[in-house]
């Protein structure tokens, strides 16, 4: 493997447009950077900023959020909520010293496998430039007692 830094990126896709775009890229054998690992949600509106925090805290160097183009949301208008959360999340992460470029929002329709692939490639390059984030794992931690961890929203 190459010497250069290979960022680890967690990607969230909606079930209808962006995940299908990834399928399309596959079917068309479009080659793109292997650094992004996708997690499928039903809609970009499901994207809870907690997911992004968890990914960064868990060692991701960047996070990609993707959904249907504005106006084309499978659920009518939920991707606008994703957009708003993304913008506020990015502002908040600035305060943590996380470069805004590490979080990217990408719109891709089910047909845009090529586009998704290109976006991923350029995102990986951006994050590569920023270098590793490797958030500390806080080894000193005693975890909170199990029951609390397991009651979740």
């Amino acid at each position: 493997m190459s010497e250069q830094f290979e960022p680890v990126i967690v990607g969230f896709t909606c079930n209808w447009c962006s995940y299908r775009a990834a399928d399309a890229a596959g079917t068309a054998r479009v080659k793109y950077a292997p650094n992004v690992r996708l997690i499928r949600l039903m809609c970009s509106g499901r994207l809870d900023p907690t997911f992004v925090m968890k990914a960064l805290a868990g060692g991701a160097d960047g996070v990609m959020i993707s959904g249907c183009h504005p106006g084309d949301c499978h659920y009518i208008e939920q991707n606008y909520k994703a957009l708003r959360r993304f913008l506020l999340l990015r502002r908040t992460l600035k305060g943590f010293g996380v470069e805004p470029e590490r979080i990217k929002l990408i719109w891709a329709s089910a047909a845009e496998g090529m586009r998704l692939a290109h976006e991923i490639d350029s995102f990986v390059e951006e994050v590569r430039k920023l270098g590793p984030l490797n958030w500390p794992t806080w080894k000193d931690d005693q975890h909170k007692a199990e029951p609390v961890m397991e009651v979740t929203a």
Partner: protein
Amino acid sequence: MSNKPKFAMYWAASCGGCEIAVLNIHEKILDVDANFDVVFWPVAMDAKYHDVEAMEDGSILLTLFNGGMRNDENEAIARLLRRKSKILVAFGSCATEGCIPGLANLSPVEELFDIAYHTVSTNNPHNIHPQTSFEVPEGTLTLPTMNPIVKTLAQVVDVDYYMPGCPPESHQIAAVIDLVIQVLQGKAQLPPKGSYIGAGNSTVCDECKRDRNVKTITAFKRIQEVAPVDPKLCILEQGVPCNGPATRSGCNARCPTVGAQCIGCYGPAEGVIDYGARLITAFASVVDAREPAEIEAILDGIPDPTGQFYRFNLADSLLRASTKAWKKNGH
């Protein structure tokens, strides 16, 4: 020594408000005295560190521990009391989530010094900073070592229960003391380990008497721009970023009741693992705009999102500290 169960209360890096809140239960204090043998409670009585060390492990039934983990001494006592106590309660915001002093995690310790010992009123031409060990003519003086970041009690030792609030409301403290006494008398059961006690499972809105409507926010405002707020209407709907929707109930919505926004001192609701994220998503969800430019313009109404959303919870959030803070400290 009496054979009453042993009780201890301790303050680590804290403001003392938790102690005052306990004293504010007034005559209830006597119940504690009647049912417990208070073996360690700096604010209320004398006892010695090595007396505690001398105790058998697990010989203290109940320890209410407040204050955050700001330096190595805080941690040392946390470990000691964990060892000695059957039930260790993280008491108050500092111990449960880091509280306001946790905001220090946004900057490296060095910066705390650089600022504190070079303020406008400080005359420090030789750039003197306190030293953990310093030779005076007569000998060596030592000071505790600051942690690179503020930690919560649970990040240092295993915690049995959490009692949130800055400080916990006295009526809640009284209630918890009643519960424990009832348990001692076999009239009640302890909640499962890890439970939050002396607080509700919902959020502040649950206890807030203000009228609420379907929410859409066209502009965020600062409290001084709108005060006095409409006495009836939800403060958030008046544009003031009130943390009530995401903040654990239990305080009777004190601040909104007197026309001030909730600042979140009771921390996240049951089971939430990142308090700030709940506010980010909630506030963003009700912003009434679709174009990035419009959205950004509305978000400009929150000048300090990180502080707004993690005011009390930073040290217990998923990220816990800014890159500046931990990178500098070579994590």
